[in-house]
């Protein structure tokens, strides 16, 4: 199945790309598993905002084909 992944702000710089389509061989992969895969096994940064199909969710969310996953770094400036 295919999952569209988008990286925002400093996540884009960190990943070196703004978006990509990831092909995985099974349904039900979690966001965390997807992250490890796209980030070469790195831990997910704390308080990373995750949106699946425009709804914020946590890293245990299971994905299905056609989902769009977006990663946003936390912003606290004032």
């Amino acid at each position: 199945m295919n999952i569209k992944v988008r990286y925002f702000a400093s996540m884009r710089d960190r990943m070196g790309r703004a978006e990509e389509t990831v092909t995985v061989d099974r349904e039900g992969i979690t966001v965390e598993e997807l992250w490890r895969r796209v980030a070469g096994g790195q831990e997910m940064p704390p308080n990373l905002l995750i949106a699946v199909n425009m709804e914020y969710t946590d890293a245990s969310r299971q994905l299905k084909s056609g989902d769009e996953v977006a990663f946003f770094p936390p912003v606290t400036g004032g």
Partner: protein
Amino acid sequence: MDDRQLQRYSRHLLLPEVGPEGQERLLAARVLLVGAGGLGSPAALYLAASGVGELRIADPDRVELENLQRQIAHGTADLGRSKARSAAESARALNPEVQVQALAERAEGARLAAWAAEVDLVLDASDNFPTRYALNEACLAAGRPLVSGAVAGWRGQVAVFTPGRGGCYRCLYPQEEAAEEATCAAQGVLSPAAGTVGCLMAVEALKVLLGLETALRGKLLQADLLAQRWRVARIRQDPACPCAGRWRAREDSNL
């Protein structure tokens, strides 16, 4: 409202969503604004000009030269002064009818709990995770709506958290202990990006005070002002978050 107030607020009175009744609500409202920096400056000025009855501005810091690029409630003559006092003075100059109080102390602990209990609504215009979690906690305990804004670089975000209606700030950012964050000091900030977010916070605060529905209740607006891409997405209430079942609805309020 007297004749001068009818004139001062006439452009609000013309709006069907505000009108005389709504303006009276604003004139009777008490608001706590935490942070008198890039977001708090425009929020303070617009809330004061709008005729919010009581505005309490909290900030423990002093005005420094690098603040003036965006923190428009302070002028060059205010360098070294308390940000809370400087912003309060600017707000009073815009609208002397507003009761403006400067709180030149850090928003934390029992002091913050007391501040939150005394107002109708809290705006989080602070610049760090510890203050943001403390404000969330104080608003949960007191049952007060919280308008939260943040900015860094060209990007900003705004959310509205209301008692009993969806998640809280911690549902959005659950990892209090491990905070790696995008701040203005670390990555810079475009001056009017802070202004944009501060103004959006004032808009949302007025809507809550007026009893109007807002599309941002329980949602997060993220704006990328470089690409002009704006997205709104729903914040999921985290069943593991301490906020679940903890919002105390306020008996004397229908906000």
